[in-house]
């Protein structure tokens, strides 16, 4: 049996919230696409190759979630919507520490 490990909230650009439960260490990209969250494409399947799973981590959570890696930095910083807490959702793995995490989505994925 897969026990619930936590909940992550994806907030669309227009403010619509999607609460997604997770039971394992899936990436946030997988959680979003498998739960029909609009605005996260994940075209490359999680290889940090496409940049279509850009999310912005809530300020209160960035210390726990961590800041972006060098490859994420290269992929995201050309986006006009890049923010200080921008990450690629495919590089963020769900874990119990992230129960309650909120991330915002940009208006457009590049």
């Amino acid at each position: 049996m897969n026990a619930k490990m936590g909940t992550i909230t994806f907030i669309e650009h227009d403010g619509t919230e999607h609460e997604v439960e997770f039971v394992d260490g899936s990436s946030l990209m997988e959680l979003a696409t498998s739960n029909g969250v609009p605005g996260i494409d994940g075209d490359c399947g999680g290889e940090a190759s496409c940049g279509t799973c850009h999310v912005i981590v809530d300020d209160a959570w960035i210390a726990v979630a961590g800041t972006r890696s060098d490859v994420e930095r290269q992929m995201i910083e050309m986006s006009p919507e890049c923010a200080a807490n921008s990450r690629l959702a495919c590089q963020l793995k769900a874990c119990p520490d992230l129960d309650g995490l909120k991330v915002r989505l940009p208006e457009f994925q590049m």
Partner: protein
Amino acid sequence: MTERVVIVGAGHASAQVCASLRRDGWSGEILLIGDEPSLPYQRPPLSKAFLAGESTLADLLIRKPEFYEKEHIVFRRGRVTGIDRDAATVGLDDGETLGYDKLVLCTGARPRPLPVPGAELAGVHDLRDVADAQSIRSGLATAGRAVVIGGGYIGLEAAASLRKLGLAVTVLELADRVLQRVTTPRISAFYDRVHREEGIDLRLGTGVVALEGDGRVTGVRLADDEVIATDLVVVGVGVVPNVELAQAAGLTVDDGIAVDAHGRTEDPAVFAAGDCTSYVDARSGCRLRLECVANAVEQAKTVSATICGHDRSISALPWFWSDQFDLKLQIAGLSTGYDETVLRGDPDTGRSFACFYFAEGRLIAADCVNRAQDFMFSKRAIAEGLSPDRGLLADSDTQLASLLQASSTGGG
């Protein structure tokens, strides 16, 4: 009565059609028919992480089974044997007939067969689906040598993965350079150098006349009669689009199943998306058949929108990627028709550079090796129709972001 979308084929395009239909407001039935046992999965890792044993089929699923359950999308394993457009039905190999209101053909492509004797021997593999990758993997424990036939992306990715696993690898390419069909000579030369540096025995201009062995392959006979001894052969000599169902149903096939900018065939109830299609690219005006995930996803989103009555056309910039050894190649746009190139970094020495392609002063494509930033810059600059200054682009000290602001006119 509830309306029904039937999707034929279960790859990247189908997975996206399923997801987009629900997002776009389709509340009717969705029936996904695939001839592989699995729900749609990622194919690109088959020649990389999956081949290396670093991931499982469950890891590859594009969306988890729970998604299909929750969205009431029914997956049915079977092979569609015919389409009756007058009756709006498809026939399955088990004899059943299923009706549709909208039909989406996502039939993909299949490996081009190697037309030589011995291609059916055990130990000779294509690399298109998970069963192919699993059978290569299962033979690795006892294999020390591999021959890869074909120096395209699949062949070179397979060669790199097998080499990393410790095999002695020979790559045979009929053309006088690798990646001849898909990229420019400069990029071919770069990959040629890296594969040789990594210990691949790369042979260009080399034809294969037979695969030899008693039941199981033991050697590859070349046109000059040399025989290369091997334990394993991977064939990657291109793909053929699966257009036969469409053709038999009287739909137009022009290299691929011909669709318009909205993903429609000439039958208003029939759509197509992915590797099996051809369409007229709005940027170049050329009819294209693209073999890549990004195209499948873009066309699928367009088909879904069209079915749901939204106005959307196939417009996203095509892009591709390929991972080999420590190289991450990301390609933005199509370089066909370029008249000038600009280099950033040096492809003759290191392993990080970008090659930008211009046509009449405008940036149309970029090949970026271990340069994610240059890739994302290119995606944006090409989509916005920019003409960045070539001198500044070539200068590694230039911040690329600065070229996004100042380059919309001019052309350097």
